[in-house]
């Protein structure tokens, strides 16, 4: 019954193939997927990651030595767990897709790890920092090139208590991401002798924080710790000013974005953030990455995790080149990554697929830029955090 259509398909394919007989077409096509938040509040980070991953694919396709011709499938997880599971299922169900580089938001990454495992699609997380993504299960398919928020909060807590701060109010969003930030930071801070005067959970799309901040103001903390992402980080900092709160805003990797600074203008001054790895210009391959990124002519900046997306995609492509376009083989190859040389420095996956980077960089917003603390006027003692 399907025969006539089948024949047509074969004919069409043959015709197409015939029309493509050029030297370049000698390479097989291999599909890989990128998943990130391309719409919604944190879209800027998702688009930066998408561009970076795409850049890795473009560079590989331009390389005459590459064995395959790579085709990137880009999927939008909207930073929402339910959408993320849908698109991860879509990628996993497409047997043509060999591997994925996925997720900026922890809430989405933790939601999809089971899907990747079930559909046996090897993947590398490029931005989500929730420890559970790699550590809750021991899925051979799941890997992560960036560090977790455990390291981040340890460093943040030691650093802030070291500066002499004593009292905090914690505001966190109530996604898995914000809750875990609260949990790890609160634990570390207690160990380091800091005092938390109050803790407020807020929803991730909240616009008005005056009720929470009025209470925070009455508690009179030296520091407001914010565990959440840029959009509400901006609102909280802005509304702190409206209410005349004189505390330091201590953020996490979640606010380390150009958008935080452009959204706040002068008010961003003195905000703190902590990020795994080093700034692009200090990364081993950072200069190369930035040059290639600029050369490709992307309008949007790569944002904080672009380099990780690039490194993750390059790692995936290297493994496909080495073992061939086969999911099981790529999974096995990724399980055995030791001292892999990447633009973010050497990558080594532990038995949970977690890269063992321990380097955390501290940033302070100074004159409209995120400056590494040690290089900043604050670090040099010329300016004081207010």
């Amino acid at each position, binding site marked *: 019954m399907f025969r006539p259509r089948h024949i047509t398909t074969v004919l069409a394919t043959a015709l197409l193939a015939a029309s493509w007989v050029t030297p370049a077409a000698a390479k097989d096509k291999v599909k890989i997927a990128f998943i990130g938040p391309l*719409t*919604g*509040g944190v*879209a*800027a980070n998702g*688009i930066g990651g998408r561009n970076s991953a795409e850049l890795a694919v473009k560079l590989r396709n331009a390389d005459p030595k590459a064995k395959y011709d790579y085709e990137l499938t880009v999927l939008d997880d909207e930073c929402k767990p339910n959408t993320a599971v849908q698109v991860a299922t879509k990628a996993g169900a497409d047997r043509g897709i060999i591997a994925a580089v996925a997720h900026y938001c922890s809430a989405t990454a933790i939601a999809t790890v089971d899907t990747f495992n079930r559909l046996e699609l090897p993947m590398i997380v490029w931005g989500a920092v929730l420890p559970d993504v790699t550590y809750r299960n021991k899925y051979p398919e799941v890997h992560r090139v960036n560090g977790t928020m455990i390291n981040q909060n340890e460093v943040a807590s030691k650093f802030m208590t070291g500066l002499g701060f004593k009292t905090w109010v914690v505001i966190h969003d*109530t996604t898995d991401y914000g809750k875990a930030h609260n949990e790890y930071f*609160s634990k570390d801070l207690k160990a380091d002798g800091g005092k*938390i*005067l*109050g*803790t*407020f*959970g*807020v*929803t991730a*799309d*909240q*616009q*008005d924080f*005056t*009720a*929470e901040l*009025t*209470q925070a*103001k*009455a*508690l009179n903390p030296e520091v407001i710790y914010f565990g959440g992402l*840029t*959009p509400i980080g*901006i*609102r909280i900092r*802005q*509304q702190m000013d*409206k*209410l*005349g709160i004189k505390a330091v805003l201590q953020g996490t990797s979640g606010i380390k974005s150009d*958008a935080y600074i*452009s*959204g*706040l*203008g002068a008010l961003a001054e003195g905000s703190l953030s902590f990020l795994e790895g080093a700034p692009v210009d200090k990364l081993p391959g950072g200069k190369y990455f930035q040059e290639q990124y600029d050369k490709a002519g992307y309008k*949007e900046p790569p944002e904080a995790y672009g380099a990780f997306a690039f490194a993750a995609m390059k790692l995936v492509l290297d493994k496909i080149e080495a073992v061939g376009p086969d999911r099981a083989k790529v999974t096995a190859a990724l399980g055995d990554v030791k001292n892999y040389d990447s633009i973010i420095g050497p990558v080594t996956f532990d038995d949970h697929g977690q890269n063992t980077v321990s380097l955390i960089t501290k940033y302070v917003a100074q004159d409209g830029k995120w400056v590494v603390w040690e290089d900043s006027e604050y670090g040099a003692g010329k300016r004081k955090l207010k």
Partner: protein
Amino acid sequence: VLAATRNSDSRPTPVDIALFGQYLVNGLMLGLMYGLVAVGFTLFFGVLDVIKFSHGDVLTVGAFTAFATYLALKATVTLPWLQLVIVSVVAILAMAVLGALIARFLVLPLRSAPALNTLLITLMLGTVLRESVRLFFPDGSNPKPFPALLPNTAFPFGHFNLRLDSMILLAAGLAMIVAVHLVINKTKLGLAIRAVAQDGETARTMGINFTFVILVTFAIGSGVAAFAGVMNGLYYNEINFGMGLLLGVFGFSAAVVGGLGNIYGAILGGFLFAALQTIGAVALPFASAYKDVFALAIIIAIMTWRPTGLIAEKSSERV
């Protein structure tokens, strides 16, 4: 753990007057914004019995229109008050036109279709507006710093930071409500709107230009939304493409609880909703993240008690 942290420390007692003053001002500002959004919902429902779900996103587009106008003016006009006037007028007029266009091309053609269709089509339109702002406004995915065009003098009284700009915004918002009230109740146009709201067909036979009245009503509602958008921008000094979404939901809830079709109900609903949110965040022992759950749960309870809202539309349609 959370409760323990919060209780073990000396939290200020709720009777602190300064603190109460701050909550009151916060709540009033929120309530005013919800109320202004709710007025639109209630006007549209009043004249056409439709729910226009793109209303919140019209507010967003209004705020971004104001922001774009400001960016264009920045170089030539330097007086902040003049900037503010131009920015507000442009945003309000532009949204009035947009509102009328939506009514003319999306809402009126569906007049004989089930009301659900209007609801769905405007819901989709809302997404289109929202995503358009994100995609077509330069770097629209990111929050934008809305300029502070009002004097930012602040008078600190303990925990209470009384800001001049907040006071001006409150006064302006109340003036807007009074203006809408006067238009509806004291002008010929308002009489026509009320006539159409009561019985469109009869109004038509009495020589009222039905289509014109509908378009004007949508223009007024959308203009008020733009005003609320500018107010929102001036109050928070931050706008983003998603700002209208929750404001739309809360404004709609306020309109429903107040009684769809009744302007005073909308205002009352707005303040009630804001008060519930503030109480939910401040006075209740659970995490402030549940304040919306709390506020909406109370709204649901009120709706079961008074299905037509606190102040029901005067002419009930039930026969």
